[in-house]
């Protein structure tokens, strides 16, 4: 645990991802103007790092994941123009985005890049991590779906990212499937084995985003993700204004102004009328360990094929879909519908 006196408070960095993970919850349709407004409010609240990208990272705008309302370049240039102290960050998933997309981000003023892979596939991040380091960016390696493997595998994969030059490694509980014990197990081992700092990104599908984040901090994570009002994939992320208050009570220093971050959350209320919540389907995402951003795509497929979205989620969990496999949702739904229909043809 952290020390007592004010000067001895342990520092926790907050990375805001309202304008990246939050994009899932608005079907990637934030306008540049909305992003600029929210980023301005986050800067006022002294949030150190602000991540801006399509929900599936740079280059994510697509049929498979949903088209964004603007290009990566437009979003990044817009937000960069209002930031002076806060650092602009991007997310990139190798296999979806490429070094070409990172070039655009660098030219737009990006200072931090997070390169994310499925937890067992870290070796596809090498070219991107190396490129970002060459460009002088702070580069964070991210392992997604970390609930699917144990601590040893995570250490092995995190070390790969470290060897490519990553400045930090982040664990994402992409399916919101972990309980605090799972978080602790993974971070404790990682902290012993790595020489770079560790961050944690939560989802709230089991109602544990804040609790898991706090546990991560208590066992050694030094960076946590949050989003205003918890806006994010599935049931959302760790609610940032709550996270800031909780960390403060627990004796951590985030540097974020609590009132101003609450103001930013209120601004978000005026922009996003419907916030994610733990409904039955998102609860099942966490329970079955399915990638959180599948949620809205599952609702759409359930409607088109007249199915219960919960059946689709459970089947995706059974097939061990990984992040980015939104196309499997259509397949699963079509197969289920074909089984139900006597003609067996959905075309």
């Amino acid at each position, binding site marked *: 645990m952290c020390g007592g006196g004010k000067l001895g408070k342990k520092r926790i960095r907050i990375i805001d991802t309202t304008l990246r993970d939050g994009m899932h919850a608005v079907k990637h349709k934030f306008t540049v103007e909305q992003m600029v407004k929210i980023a301005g409010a986050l800067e006022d609240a002294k949030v150190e790092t602000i991540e801006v990208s399509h929900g599936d990272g740079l280059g994510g705008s*697509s*049929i*498979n994941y949903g088209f964004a309302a603007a290009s990566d370049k437009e979003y990044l240039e817009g937000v960069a123009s209002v930031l002076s102290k806060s650092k602009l960050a991007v997310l990139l998933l*190798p*296999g*979806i985005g*490429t*070094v*070409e997309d990172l070039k655009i981000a660098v030219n737009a003023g990006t200072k931090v890049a997070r390169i994310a892979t*499925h937890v*067992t*596939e870290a*070796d*596809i991040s*090498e*070219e991107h991590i190396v490129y970002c380091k060459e460009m002088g960016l702070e580069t964070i390696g991210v392992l997604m779906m970390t609930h699917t493997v144990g601590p040893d595998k995570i250490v092995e994969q995190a070390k790969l990212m470290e060897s490519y030059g990553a400045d930090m490694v982040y664990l994402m509980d992409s399916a919101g499937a972990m309980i605090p014990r799972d978080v602790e197990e993974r971070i404790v081992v990682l902290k012993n084995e790595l020489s770079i700092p560790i961050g944690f990104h939560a989802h709230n599908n089991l109602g544990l985003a804040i609790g898991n984040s706090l546990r991560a901090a208590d066992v050694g994570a030094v960076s946590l993700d949050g989003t205003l009002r918890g806006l994010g994939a599935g049931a959302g992320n760790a609610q940032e204004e709550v996270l800031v208050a909780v960390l403060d009570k627990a004796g951590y220093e985030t540097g974020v102004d609590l009132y101003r971050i609450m103001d930013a959350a209120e601004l978000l209320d005026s922009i996003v009328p419907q916030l994610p919540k733990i409904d039955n389907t998102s609860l099942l995402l966490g329970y079955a360990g399915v990638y959180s951003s599948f949620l809205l795509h599952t609702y759409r497929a359930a409607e*088109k094929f007249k199915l219960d979205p919960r059946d689709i989620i459970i089947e995706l969990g059974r*097939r*061990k*879909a*990984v992040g*980015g*496999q939104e*196309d*499997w949702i*259509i*397949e699963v739904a*079509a*197969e289920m519908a*074909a089984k139900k229909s006597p003609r067996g*043809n*959905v*075309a």
Partner: protein
Amino acid sequence: MGKIGVAIVGPGNIGTDLMFKILKRSKYMYIRRVIGIFPPSQSEGLRIAQQKGIDIAWNGVEGLEEIADEVDIVFEATTAKAHLQNAPVYKKLGLIAIDLTPAAVGPYVIPAVNIEEHLDKDNVNMVTCGGQATVPIVYAVNKVSRVEYAEIVSSIASKSAGPGTRKNIDEFTQTTAKALEKVGGAKRGKAIIILNPAEPPIIMQNTIHCIVEDISKKEEILQSIHDMVKTIQQYVPGYALKIPPVVFEDENRVTVIIRVIGEGDYLPTYAGNLDIMTAAAAATGEKFAEKILKEKPEREVLPKSG
């Protein structure tokens, strides 16, 4: 007609699987030599070739130069870097190079789409596994109604993605996207690749989304897709629609999901991504060999037996 001599350079997973395919069903190709850079004690591919009675060498491109006059086609199953070095040598030796690496010295070839127009080239490239699996479908759709935008997602088993692919995954997405446009005919193409580590390994699967100019032609589009699947099955038997194509009329879109089960010649059946590459290369070689035998019957090294 008899057979012409071919060589395989690079006896790794791909080269070895290709060897099996040529041995199994080639009418016009005879494997004169398999060439590596490590001795058989360090190369399973060379050991297998030897067991099958095929001549082997492990002195790299020199091993090809020694027998060049008995060979007309060389399959490059090394790396992009090696092919960039080797390509001028093959050209000097007067060989036709079928390049399975991402080097792309020559034009992209998809047997079901454009092989005929490249039979006059001396170097052709096999694109990517995702390209071989998806470009023909885009081409089939585009034949009926202009494809404004084609997007593909290839899901492959982690175990079937080799170190080369992993080190340079951008090459896959960029090359495949380019082929969707150049060969498939889409106005704009985008490719995504996902590695899935599930056990047992997942079978290679490809989702192809096409946004078309005129979705009212959906019946013809679907017919064209089905015809193309049949054409591809002639050289990739494990290629099939996973579910019937799905039409999203409000989005002018047709979505096709394909799975490719490998023949399991040398590689496991889930590695359809590797299978479709070697199958496409073998089919391409066959076309070239047939043409050479017709035009220059004196090149025949192995007369038709029985």
